[in-house]
């Protein structure tokens, strides 16, 4: 068993840059490269793609990414773990096998992990008495949205990834495993962790480091409050974790890459998208971020120690996506002088148009761009005459036809509106997939691992 496992981040979200992943592969001396592609909303989009085409539903960038990464990964013996299977890990893995064959990398083992997708098991869960209460609103009337459900995926744990790596997988293509499991899985495999035998504090340490790593450059200066002082963010280095068997770790990056690793960049990511920091609940365990210790031990090197937590929960998070009407929106801009006055008169005019057009909307929002669009009620009124102000309007409707009326009203204001109105390109109505977050018993979710050989 190794004393230290070297984990590299290769992607923080679908759309992330590929060059830092290649840099980690080339120069990071890592054992594993973990790539996160999924957000809460992504599964519903992918499920819809799969509905139209049974061969779709995985992350469409996956084949191109693997074509770029695989030759180097195979040469260096770096194993890639990703959730790019999305709503169709089987099709995604088959594509990766195809890519490996076309590169002459025959014998490459590609594991697929299924079992998170519960779309066809919802009625079974309801019949079994699982309440599916909405965790945000406390709403117990899941029945109300039952017929509009388009996706249902449980955040699954690292056991499938561990099994795949134990079986010798060079690439793991998972679906909705937790982002975190992409890092915990390799640790479980390399350090021979087991949920029953291993000290929960050790697994919680893995969860903590997974959390720091999972959004890639967000731990190396991306999104930083100190962005102005971060060097060369356009060629930022993705984070690397040197995880020791004793449950401590060092966060670092490739020397010479852009960005920075210091106590603050690690702190900034530790608090990202966290609720109660003493109970960071993941399918593999519950980490407590309130007792760990950070030490800067060298340039771009931060040691994380005293990590800990508790064993894994009995319930898994289930994200259900459902069709929830339409959003119509528009935006236009007004110039100095009295840009704010023009925007406010345009808003009154638009409301009159909505009335004339008979708009049926259950929610209407106006934002003054440059004034209160981002901070809402927390933003004050300008005490000067701004150079320009925008007016943004967004409404929620039941149907596309109603949402379309917003685009029409905005276009009508091009001439009916204030002098100087600059309108840009009109925005199309978009369908809404809302999220119903809930819990499902762990026992109801079974992961399945299968190996394809290129």
């Amino acid at each position, binding site marked *: 068993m190794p004393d230290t496992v070297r984990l590299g981040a290769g992607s923080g979200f679908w759309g992330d840059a590929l060059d830092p992943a290649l840099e980690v592969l080339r120069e990071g001396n890592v054992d594993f490269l973990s790539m996160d592609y999924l957000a*809460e*909303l992504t599964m*519903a989009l992918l499920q819809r793609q799969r509905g139209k085409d049974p061969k779709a539903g995985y992350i469409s960038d996956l084949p191109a990414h693997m074509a770029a990464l695989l030759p180097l990964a195979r040469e260096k013996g770096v194993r890639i773990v990703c959730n790019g299977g999305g709503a169709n890990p089987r099709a995604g893995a088959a594509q990766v096998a195809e890519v490996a064959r076309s590169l002459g990398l025959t014998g490459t083992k590609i594991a697929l992990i299924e079992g998170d997708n519960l779309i066809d098991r919802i009625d079974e869960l309801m019949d079994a008495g699982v309440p599916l209460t909405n*965790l*945000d*609103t406390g709403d117990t009337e899941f029945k109300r949205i039952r017929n509009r459900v388009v996706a249902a995926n449980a955040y699954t744990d690292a056991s499938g990834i561990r099994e795949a790596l134990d079986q010798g997988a060079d690439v793991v293509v998972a679906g909705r495993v937790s982002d975190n499991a992409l890092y915990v899985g390799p640790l479980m495999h390399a350090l021979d962790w087991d949920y029953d035998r291993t000290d929960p504090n050790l697994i919680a340490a893995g969860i903590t480091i997974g959390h720091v790593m999972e959004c890639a450059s967000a731990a190396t200066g991306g*999104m*930083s*409050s*100190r962005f102005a002082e971060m060097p060369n963010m356009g060629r930022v280095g993705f984070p690397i974790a040197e995880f020791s068997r004793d449950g401590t770790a060092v966060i670092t990056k490739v020397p010479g890459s852009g960005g920075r690793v210091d106590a*603050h960049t690690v*702190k*900034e*990511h*530790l*608090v*990202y*998208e*966290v*609720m*109660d*920091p*003493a109970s960071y609940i993941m399918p593999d365990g519950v980490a407590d*971020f*309130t*007792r*760990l*210790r*950070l030490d800067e031990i060298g340039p771009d090197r931060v040691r994380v120690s005293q990590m800990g937590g508790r064993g894994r929960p009995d319930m898994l998070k289930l*994200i259900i*996506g459902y069709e*929830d009407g339409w*959003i119509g*929106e528009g935006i236009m801009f007004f110039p100095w002088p009295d840009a704010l006055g023009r925007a406010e008169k345009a808003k009154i005019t638009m409301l009159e148009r909505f009335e004339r057009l008979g708009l049926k909307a259950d*929610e*209407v*929002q106006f*934002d003054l761009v440059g004034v209160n*669009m*981002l*901070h*809402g*009620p*927390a*933003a004050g009124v300008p005490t000067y005459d701004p150079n320009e102000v925008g007016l*943004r309007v*967004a*409404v*929620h409707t039941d149907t596309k036809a109603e949402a379309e009326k917003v685009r029409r009203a905005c276009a009508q204001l091009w001439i009916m509106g204030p002098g100087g109105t600059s309108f840009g390109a009109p925005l199309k109505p978009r369908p*809404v*997939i*809302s*999220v119903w*977050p809930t819990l499902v018993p762990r026992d109801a979710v079974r992961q399945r691992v299968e190996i394809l050989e290129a």
Partner: protein
Amino acid sequence: MPFLHEIAYVRSGDKSDSVSVGVIARTPADYPAVLRTVTPAAVKALFGDWVRGEVEVYPMDNIEAVMVVMRRALGGGATRTLRLDQTGKALGNGVLRLPVVDAPAADAA
């Protein structure tokens, strides 16, 4: 009166309809003022009807930070909200508008 942005950094994000904001003291010496300033009532008052649920504040003494959790604060969640800032990334900076609360006179002496 100084504002929170002079003594703290933030990182802001979402979990369905909740907004999560980590407020990190710039230096350990700033941490007591961050704790005094960032309270559920102050945050709730700041954002008015944009935050429809409760506000919770969790201290993290080990890294001189507090977690602010605002429930039902994203207009229905990233995919459903009518706001342009669908994931609440900018709301953390909004918290930095809070005026820093001074230490009680006895402590200051």
